[in-house]
């Protein structure tokens, strides 16, 4: 026996002794990644032509500024000061001197060039890994010169996806309700803008009250609610063509029409016979189907990305809480159990989280929870804020917040704000007027 043990020890000792040392790295930093965005190089001839067409002195620099701003806004990147760059844009685009970029602590570098070819803008860009000394990505786009802002957003999306592992959200638009005038006589117009607040356009004149615009996840179609002769009407609006149609008149209080994930149905709540329930309408045959049938008030339905489930808001437990159910209305299950009232649940495009508004002790919170109700996190708190809408990648929420503008609390201002899932990156989204009810589009370049 002793001998046997000796053999075992003798044989295994070397394995034990020579096993490779392993070190587990389970923590890192969440600091924004230092990135250098070199201005896109441009030849003199193209520069002059672009200046004539777009009235921009150096379109290469302008595009790089858009990329830089987008990356900074995301909170995940730290674009470095251009004054520190040692290499000229045209040379950097050919072959960056990695030592120079390393010197200013850049970990990634974006270079590129822009030309005018046959009246079309051709933009090339490259993403470089400075530490590895390698090119990570190289792409080129051709478009009409007036699309130069979109080119900047598309470049950002590509860089963002390559460096973070998830799709970007920069080549997107936000539709919202633009508000003006005193609270008792508020003018509300439908408005649309790029996600960075640029290219703002009003879509309606403000003669009728408009509410809750929502993007179709698969196209640039919008559904919204408007009152016509004091009757709520659900409209469909094609952003590309400007064509508009009435989906239907609905009795009583109608709330928040929203598209199904495939864009073929609309789901909403409206009151019939004094009771508010959830209904769907097939947009092809206009058949309305009742999904919930409960004496309580059921509102704010939102589909899961796979279309199999619906989350909604109900007071069937006595207080306003969040529930989920199968898309046919069965298996209703309450998921929110925290203190306070919960409303406006919206399913994340990633499918993993539900965003909501919470009212507790007189304060409004925007938060997220997992789809089983666990892991509730309140991202932001304020006097009044609601209506979160997800960015198409499920990382950022946009919502509106009302703030008092005088000491008496009589004046107020409503603005759009965005916050990412960390809860640290909260930003005001610039709009020309007051704004509410934002809805984020899917990626335009998809």
């Amino acid at each position, binding site marked *: 026996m002793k001998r046997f043990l000796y053999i075992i020890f003798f044989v295994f000792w070397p394995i034990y002794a020579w096993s490779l*040392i*392993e070190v587990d790295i389970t923590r890192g930093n969440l600091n924004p990644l230092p990135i250098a965005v070199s201005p896109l190089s441009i030849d003199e001839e193209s520069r002059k032509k672009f200046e004539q067409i777009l009235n921009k002195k150096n379109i290469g620099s302008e595009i790089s500024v858009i990329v830089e701003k987008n990356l900074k806004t995301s909170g995940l990147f730290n674009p470095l000061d251009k004054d520190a760059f040692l290499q000229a844009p045209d040379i950097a685009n050919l072959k960056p001197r990695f030592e120079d970029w390393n010197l200013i602590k850049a970990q990634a570098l974006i270079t590129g060039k822009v030309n005018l070819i046959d009246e079309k803008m051709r933009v090339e860009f490259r993403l470089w890994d400075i530490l590895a000394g*390698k090119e990570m990505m190289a792409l080129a786009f051709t478009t009409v010169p007036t699309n130069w802002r979109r080119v900047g957003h598309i470049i950002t999306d590509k860089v963002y996806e390559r460096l973070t592992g998830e799709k970007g959200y920069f080549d997107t638009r936000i539709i919202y309700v633009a508000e003006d005038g005193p609270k008792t006589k508020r003018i509300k117009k439908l408005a649309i803008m790029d996600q960075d607040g640029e290219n703002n356009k009003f879509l309606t004149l403000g003669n009728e009250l408009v509410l809750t615009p929502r993007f179709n996840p698969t196209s640039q179609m919008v559904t919204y609610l408007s009152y016509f002769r004091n009757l709520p009407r659900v409209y469909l609006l094609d952003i590309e063509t400007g064509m508009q149609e009435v989906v239907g008149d609905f009795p009583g209080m109608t709330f928040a029409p929203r598209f199904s994930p495939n864009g073929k149905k609309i789901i909403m709540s409206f009151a019939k016979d004094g009771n508010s329930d959830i209904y769907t309408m097939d947009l092809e045959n206009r058949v309305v189907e009742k999904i919930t049938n409960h004496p309580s008030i059921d509102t704010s339905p939102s589909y899961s990305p796979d279309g199999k489930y619906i989350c909604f808001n109900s007071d069937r437990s006595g207080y306003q809480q969040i529930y989920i159910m199968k898309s046919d209305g069965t298996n209703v299950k309450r998921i929110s159990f925290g203190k306070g009232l919960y409303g406006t649940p919206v399913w994340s495009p990633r499918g993993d989280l539900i965003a909501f508004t919470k009212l507790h002790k007189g304060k409004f919170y925007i938060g997220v929870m997992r789809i089983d109700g666990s892991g509730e996190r309140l991202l932001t708190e304020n006097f009044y804020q609601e209506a979160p809408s997800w960015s198409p990648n499920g990382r950022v929420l946009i919502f509106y917040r009302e703030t008092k503008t005088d000491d008496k609390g009589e004046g107020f201002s409503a603005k759009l704000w965005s916050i990412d899932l960390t809860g640290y990156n909260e930003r005001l989204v610039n709009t020309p007027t007051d704004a509410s009810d934002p809805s984020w589009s899917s990626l335009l370049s998809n």
Partner: protein
Amino acid sequence: MITALSLPFLAKKPIDLPPIVSIELIQITDKTNIPYAPKAKKIIDEIKEKEKKLVSEQAPPKKVKKIKPESVPLPNEKVEKVKKPEEDKQNPEKIDTEVKQVSEFEKDELFDPNNIAALIDKSKEETADTINKIDKVTQDQQKNIENIGLSLSEEDALKAQIFGCWSIPLGLPYNENLLVRIKLQLNPDGTVLQSEILDHARMNKPGQGFYKVLAESALRAIKLCQPLRVPTTGYERWKELQLNFDAREMLEG
């Protein structure tokens, strides 16, 4: 002998050899992660050639495990350790009790001047013997510690350095396996001679695009941290190192 050589293979789980796919962005060596058979053989041969006493005298593995890095004898400590047993052996128990009652001066007087030479001779023999034994044990223990891996403080220092360098990509799906294993060959100064992603085949699997992003971030961290904070001695034990980057803990919050 065959059994001895084949057992190391049995001790390791069989590893699927991933197809080698060339990736533009990440260096992939031709090496696989098949474990150390040639090395094991070499070591077995070496050990057989060496004195067999070394194995028998060596503290059993459990004891070696208990030796904490802090207890690794420094050169100064060695001298102290040697002195202690010397005193014990020189002074039998009876004298020991007496010694406790007297001062240092009185202690000297306890010795018979005539017997001092004999005592010195004896003590020399015993001291030499003790030193030999202790040195052997200490060397063995030292060897074991060197073979086991990094001490806790060495590992902590390395971890702390890499924590600061690793920017975790925040877009990763946190319900996926977010472990990247990177094998490093290091120079004595801690710079990286070669790095190899052990699960590189995963990068090309459908739905695993995030893994490439994660692996690149880990490689960036290593490059940013160079030279790695490795111990100044014992190059042999850490010249090859495996870093397991796992982002799950951070992303799940």
